[in-house]
């Protein structure tokens, strides 16, 4: 498959929210083209909201998001869908659909009322199935797949869309660790082969550090810190962003540090005083989050 075009995606002083509630506040950021960017942060920090903003599901109440210098909301629906794809957190498989059929849904932006499946569409679908190693499942019904297989099929659908930028909202949720690693490696491979720009929202910090070239840590709707994994993933930052007490190691000196939360302090028993201190500190963190 042809290589991706590098596109410049910029977020400039953007406010995003629902109704009168603003979740992302005055956020500015440039997404590095051709790289994998992972957004991390505690629950409710606005990571998914930001992704919804970039994918046009949510219109900024102020500021603008631009693609190659043009406000993303000025593109026609299908034209935008040929450049930017999204895999939401819980997509729905239509009743009775087969894998090949679901993956071919990704071709929607290339088809019109009268322009139906072409040889080009078949090629894209075949490539997506091969790339995600799901060709063997092609004629199976999506409802009978395992969680890991199903997530691969969804990724295949997003790949069939052949966008230069791919946004993924927690693509590893509900998968076991082996399947999480597997899936993220698949994304890394695709990024290397095609140069697809990817933006992932991830909960799992160690995996985020492993897959991403660029990490963005968010807190309270703002960017707390951003950069390479070794500069973002520090003990101080984790405490500041997540209120998490952890040590950070890089045993393989790979630039992908590993977070190890501090051992649990027993509540009761000998270290009562310590436990009390830890609790009150966590409480204070929680309150400052509100």
């Amino acid at each position: 498959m042809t290589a991706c075009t590098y596109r410049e995606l910029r977020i400039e002083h953007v406010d995003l929210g629902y109704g009168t509630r603003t979740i992302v506040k005055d956020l500015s950021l440039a997404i590095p083209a051709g790289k994998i960017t992972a957004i991390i942060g505690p629950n409710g920090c606005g990571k998914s909201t930001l992704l919804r903003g970039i994918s046009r599901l949510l219109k900024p109440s102020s500021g603008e998001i631009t693609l190659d210098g043009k406000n993303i909301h000025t593109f026609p629906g299908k034209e935008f869908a040929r450049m930017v794809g999204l895999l939401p957190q819980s997509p729905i498989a239509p009743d009775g659909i087969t894998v090949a059929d679901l993956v071919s849904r990704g071709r929607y932006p290339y088809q019109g009322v009268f322009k139906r499946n072409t040889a080009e569409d078949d090629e894209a679908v075949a490539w997506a199935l091969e790339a995600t190693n799901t060709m063997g499942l092609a004629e199976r019904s999506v409802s009978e797949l395992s969680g890991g297989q199903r997530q691969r099929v969804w990724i295949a659908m997003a790949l069939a869309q052949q966008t230069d930028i791919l946004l993924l909202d927690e693509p590893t949720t509900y998968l076991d660790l082996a399947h999480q690693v597997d899936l993220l490696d698949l994304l890394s491979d695709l990024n290397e082969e095609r140069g697809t720009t990817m933006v992932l929202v991830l909960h799992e910090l160690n995996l985020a550090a492993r897959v991403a070239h660029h990490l963005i840590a968010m807190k309270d709707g703002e960017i707390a810190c951003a950069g390479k994994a070794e500069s973002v993933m520090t003990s101080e930052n984790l405490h500041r962003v997540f209120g998490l007490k952890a040590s950070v190691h890089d045993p393989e000196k790979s630039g992908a540090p590993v977070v190890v939360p501090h051992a649990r302090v027993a509540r009761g028993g000998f270290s009562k005083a310590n436990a009390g201190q830890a609790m009150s500190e966590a409480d204070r963190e929680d309150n400052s989050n509100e």
Partner: protein
Amino acid sequence: MSQVATELTPVDRVAKLRADGRRRPRLIIVGLAVTLVAVFLVRVLLGTYTVTFPDFITILQGGSIEGARGARYIVLSDKLPRAVLGTLTGLAFGCAGAIFQLLLRNPLASPDIIGISSGASLGAVLGIVFWGSTGFEISFLAVAFSLALAILIMVLAAGHGGVGNRFILMGIGVAALGNAVVNYLLTRIDINSAQSAMVWMTGSLSVANWERILILLIALCLIFPAVMLFQRQLHALAVGEELAQSLGLNVTITRWLYIVLGVLLAAVATAASGPIAFVAFVSGPIARRLIGGRHSLTASALVGAIIVVFADFIAANFVPSGAMPVGVLTGAFGAPILIWLLVQSQKEGRS
């Protein structure tokens, strides 16, 4: 088969799967169309006043049958119009039900359940009670009131968040309200009006005449092409709103377009024959089972027509105490099918 498949190139395999995937729905649709023609002929030719096929052709060409002058009258002013009206309303109900079920992603979503039919009944009964309406006035009021109730449901269900379940819940509420008013009115009118209102509300093809058929036919000729033209968009919605929108679909326009089309289909059909119970509700799931799990508006419309025409044949010929409104029969058979569907969907949910 998989051995053959592995020899194909990936692209050919995808193309082959796509072609294979379409074969069964197409076969089923052709089969349903043939069944519909067969049921239609059974309705017209058999039963009281059995007519042979050559005689039927003679009658259509304007001739009469020697020794059975009454046959011409019975066929042209009773059996044929009933079969045609039954086909048209069945197509409309079947299609409307499938639209709502696909759109709202819920097998319970059908015009019977979500207040569209109640709106039509309310309009008709109001007309009978207050203005002594008959014929077309009733039809007009039925369409007007089902549209009005549909708009009321849309307004109540509007607001952010998924429209699906809100729409159904509001619809059930509005349906209950409409039925309450209808019941109140029925207790306040004289027994003859009440009976004609009841017959209308049960759904009956005995009102069939060519004028009525022509009006319904024109309405359907306007609505069906729109329904078929944007089917792809409707099916694209089935992956969930977020994903559909990020694939470049205009979710809001598609959704409202099909809600309006579905309401119109149900409303014009109800206006022509009264709400024939359960047809809209069961056609979609039956069509889905036949096709192998997927939704198909065409198959569902055909199933609806087959059900109505066949049920009318039974109701007109095999009920001991004489003819019975078709809606009574579909209602009686619809209920067990509803229970069966609920059991099936429970099983699907578990697996």
